[in-house]
């Protein structure tokens, strides 16, 4: 099975069809995607700013992180789920979209960046936990993280502007205008 068959069968799935044929589902899913991604970005920013020594500096890093990270993962789960649901409605178009591909690559980089933290500054956290800021490696990871997530948000918005829903044909011959009272 090659990739275009796979994308085609994903697009033809019951879930994808249901979303495409509904007037409300896609807008609602996209709205919750924005709620999720803004929480992901906002909570990660709190941690990054702590590492950089810009905010929350009077609290130990581990306290800040343990308060927040669990919520970041909840929000990330919501964002990935809603993102997948949007993807399957028009899989072939998204898959070939430059901004979609860039966004996926940047998400992978953000994951690697997080791993870098665990392998460097994260290992010696007990030594700088209460310091104003993290050591250089931690600060670098934080700055890269902020930059990556902001770029990911921009890429996401550009996906919306370059994959017009005009490409999205309803599976049945429904004229949107007919759905409204005249």
């Amino acid at each position, binding site marked *: 099975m090659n990739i275009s068959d796979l994308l085609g069968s994903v697009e033809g799935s019951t879930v994808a069809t249901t979303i495409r044929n509904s*007037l*409300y589902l*896609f*807008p*609602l899913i*996209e*709205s*919750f995607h*924005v*709620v999720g*991604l*803004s*929480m*992901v*970005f*906002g*909570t990660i*920013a*709190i941690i990054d700013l702590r590492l950089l020594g810009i*905010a*929350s500096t*009077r*609290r130990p890093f581990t*306290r800040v992180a343990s*308060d*927040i990270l669990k*919520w970041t993962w909840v929000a990330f789960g919501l964002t990935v789920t809603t993102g997948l649901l949007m993807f399957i409605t028009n899989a072939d178009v998204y898959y070939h979209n430059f901004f979609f591909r860039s966004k996926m690559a940047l998400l992978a980089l953000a994951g690697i960046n997080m791993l870098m933290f665990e392998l460097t500054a994260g290992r010696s956290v007990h030594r700088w936990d209460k310091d104003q800021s993290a050591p250089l490696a931690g600060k670098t990871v934080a700055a890269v993280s902020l930059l990556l997530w*902001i770029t990911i*948000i*921009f890429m996401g*918005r*550009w996906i*919306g*502007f370059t994959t017009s829903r005009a490409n999205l044909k309803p599976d049945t011959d429904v004229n*949107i205008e007919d*759905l*409204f*009272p005249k």
Partner: protein
Amino acid sequence: MTALTEWLSQTSISLAIQTHDWVIPTVQSVHIVAIGVVLASVFMIDLRILGLAGRDQSLTETTGRFGPWLSGALCVLLATGVLMVIGEPARELLAFSFWLKMFLVAVGTVTAAVFQISLRRNEIQWEQSVAKRRTTKWLALATLLIWVCIVILGRLIAYDHIWGAWSRAPKA
């Protein structure tokens, strides 16, 4: 409103935005970044009131930490929001989602302001009793919900036709 929309769309700044394709996506992206700051700030203050985060800090300390970011990000949202209205007046000003959102923004902003002023004036009362009241915890949950609804309605402006006859926005 239609007259205002007409006039606004013919202003030179609106025409400048309309003729440069990158402006709207860029402004929208900055708007979303600022939404992240607002949502996370409200979330952290509310979690503190609910006793789910920052328990090693007083409510005053938590609000001092996140309050200024909340206000700053709200200013960015106002500025980018105004640019979007100028750039696409009909899409925004004739949308049902837009006005419902503006109503909730007013409620959310006034609530946040009243809370911060009241906390500053009656710090001891807040720490010792008000923050522990059940009503306050429900209010914290309600404000969080209001901000989430604001974000949802913001995105729904792009799909205002879902409101049917309530929407007067032109179809995108």
